[in-house]
């Protein structure tokens, strides 16, 4: 119930301070790759479009199916792959941020049980900005 109230509050706040014709944040191309056998982590990819009318800062992501979710970014410089945590992600009004393989991604760690569907909740502080769900896609394909 609290989550629903938060979502409503978030949408209300975002809609009320901009001029969006549709939803303030639009998620698309959601892919959650299944963990390899016995591995405690999975990865998720998606695109998030900010149509709120103002800049949005994503400060955290949670999932009921995983103990921890972090925003990460892989970079490859001089042939070296490095993965670093993104503490906060700013999305300008009108901007679409792309989480994709070999770039920004969500790292899902320590599953609670054996989930088939993963829900991802994006927050700005305590404010729930966006909630999306997706089934797993086989990593090996």
């Amino acid at each position, binding site marked *: 119930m609290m989550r629903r109230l938060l979502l409503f509050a978030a949408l209300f706040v975002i809609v009320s301070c901009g001029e969006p014709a549709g939803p303030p944040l639009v998620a698309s191309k959601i892919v959650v*790759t299944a963990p*390899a*056998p*016995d*591995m*405690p*982590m*999975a*990865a998720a990819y998606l695109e998030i479009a900010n149509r709120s009318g103002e800049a949005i800062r994503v400060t955290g992501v949670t999932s009921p199916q995983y103990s*921890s979710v*972090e925003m*990460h970014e*892989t970079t*490859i410089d001089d*042939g*070296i*792959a*490095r*993965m670093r*945590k993104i503490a906060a992600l700013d999305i300008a009004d009108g901007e679409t941020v792309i989480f994709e*393989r*070999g770039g920004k*991604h969500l*790292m*899902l*760690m320590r599953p609670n049980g054996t989930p088939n569907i993963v829900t991802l909740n994006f927050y700005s502080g305590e404010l729930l900005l966006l909630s999306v769900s997706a089934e797993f896609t086989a*990593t*090996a*394909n």
Partner: protein
Amino acid sequence: MRPRNFIIAFVAGAAIAVGLLFTLDLVGKKVVPVQATVLPAGNELPDFSLLNQDGDTIDRRIFEGQWDLVFFGFTHCPDVCPTTMAMLKQVRERLASQGQEPLPRIVLVSVDPERDTPEAIGKYVDYFGEGNLGITGDLTEIRKLTGDLGIYFAKIETDNDNYSVDHSSVVLVINPQGRFRALFSAPLSVDNFVHDLPLIIAMP
């Protein structure tokens, strides 16, 4: 045009055409590698003593007898490693569908032996297809192999009692004589692998 000029123009045009025929086939596809860096003679691998996914001790002779695509990564890597392994799986499938013989084996060498036991890396490589080879073992022995091949890796502590490993993202091609024959560097592409590997395998 004077006859002499015509002959010169004809010879020049023919030379250009012959040159093009050597570098392009009839459909315009290049017949030289488009991405891979090929080492003409191939470099010998260093001595090392590591473990395969069955826990058996292996040395550099494990690379003899087949073509290998060798990637250096770790099983707790959520993005680059599974993406690369899945890509190499697709490469093998594409090569098989076009009748390529021999097909290269996929090899993952762990840069995180602390977590990658033989059993763990075995389950991981099996997830990306049959016949793959997983290699792990003593860190010092891994460094003998990576150091000689110019492969970088470094453990990076994170803020949640976890750690990641920075590592080279290249894929090495080892020939059946166990020599380092070619190198694919990022950005990796299935199309480029599928184009280049038959050419590399066919090279004398």
